[in-house]
């Protein structure tokens, strides 16, 4: 009896686990189309975001509407495209379709004051939350 149960249980549990794992992988792959995680480098967003913190970012919102003042966004550095910057939207110029991006720590930030306003369509990712360090986990 015990051998029969022993034979059936791992089988059903294996099927269940495979299905759960498959669903999980599919969900993550699906979500990854508009969700991602990033690590902060540099301190121009201090004290809100500190170097080494891990953030959740998404790119769905800006397919439906423009970035708004006060939101924290990602944008390619206009002076070095391979580098992705994280800054706050300080102002939205609807006429020219550009964003003024600034670091929260002006003394320690290179931003639109140096490289000028950024075309609104270059900004796709919005920062939504910090998940690490756990003690500082928060919506942003």
């Amino acid at each position, binding site marked *: 009896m015990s051998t029969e149960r022993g034979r059936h249980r791992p089988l059903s549990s294996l099927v269940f686990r495979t299905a759960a794992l498959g669903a999980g992988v599919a969900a993550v792959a699906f979500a990854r189309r508009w969700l991602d995680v990033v690590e902060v480098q540099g301190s121009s967003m201090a004290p809100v975001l500190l170097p080494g913190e891990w953030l959740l970012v998404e790119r769905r919102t800006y397919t439906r509407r423009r970035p708004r003042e006060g939101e924290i966004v990602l944008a390619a550095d206009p002076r070095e495209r391979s580098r992705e*910057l994280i800054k706050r939207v300080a102002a939205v110029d609807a006429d020219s379709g550009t964003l003024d991006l600034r670091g929260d720590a002006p003394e320690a930030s290179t931003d639109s004051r140096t490289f000028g306003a950024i075309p609104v369509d270059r900004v796709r990712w919005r920062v939504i939350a910090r998940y690490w360090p756990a003690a500082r986990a928060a919506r942003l």
Partner: protein
Amino acid sequence: MRNPLRPRRRVHAHCDIPCGIYDPAQARIEAESCYKIIEKYNGSSDELLRARCIDIKEERAELTKHHIDVLWHDYFKPEHLEKFPDLHDVCWKASKAASKVKQTTDLEAAKELLGLIDKIDEMWRASGGPEKTRLQAVAA
């Protein structure tokens, strides 16, 4: 092993190198040298010493001007100008005073230069410079 929760994607809360070490004391020390050298120049009849005084004074005055310019161009930002409306005027006058000290052996010019550097120093202090643009502690 690498933490699987750690994001691979890095985003830069960017600040250009040099990363924000500023202190008007640097300009002040060079300007004090100029002041003292002019005193020595005026108090001496030794031609060799006087010639050396001129030489060194020009070099120190040029350094003073350089340090003033760095504060003016790099440290001060538009928000400081809002707070200190005479910011440009003071920095401009200080640069000009440094030029005058370079050109002449006028002790009054050196005094004026020191006074203007002190005004820059006041603005630097009032904008949180000592806490933000000097190292508070150096890790061992």
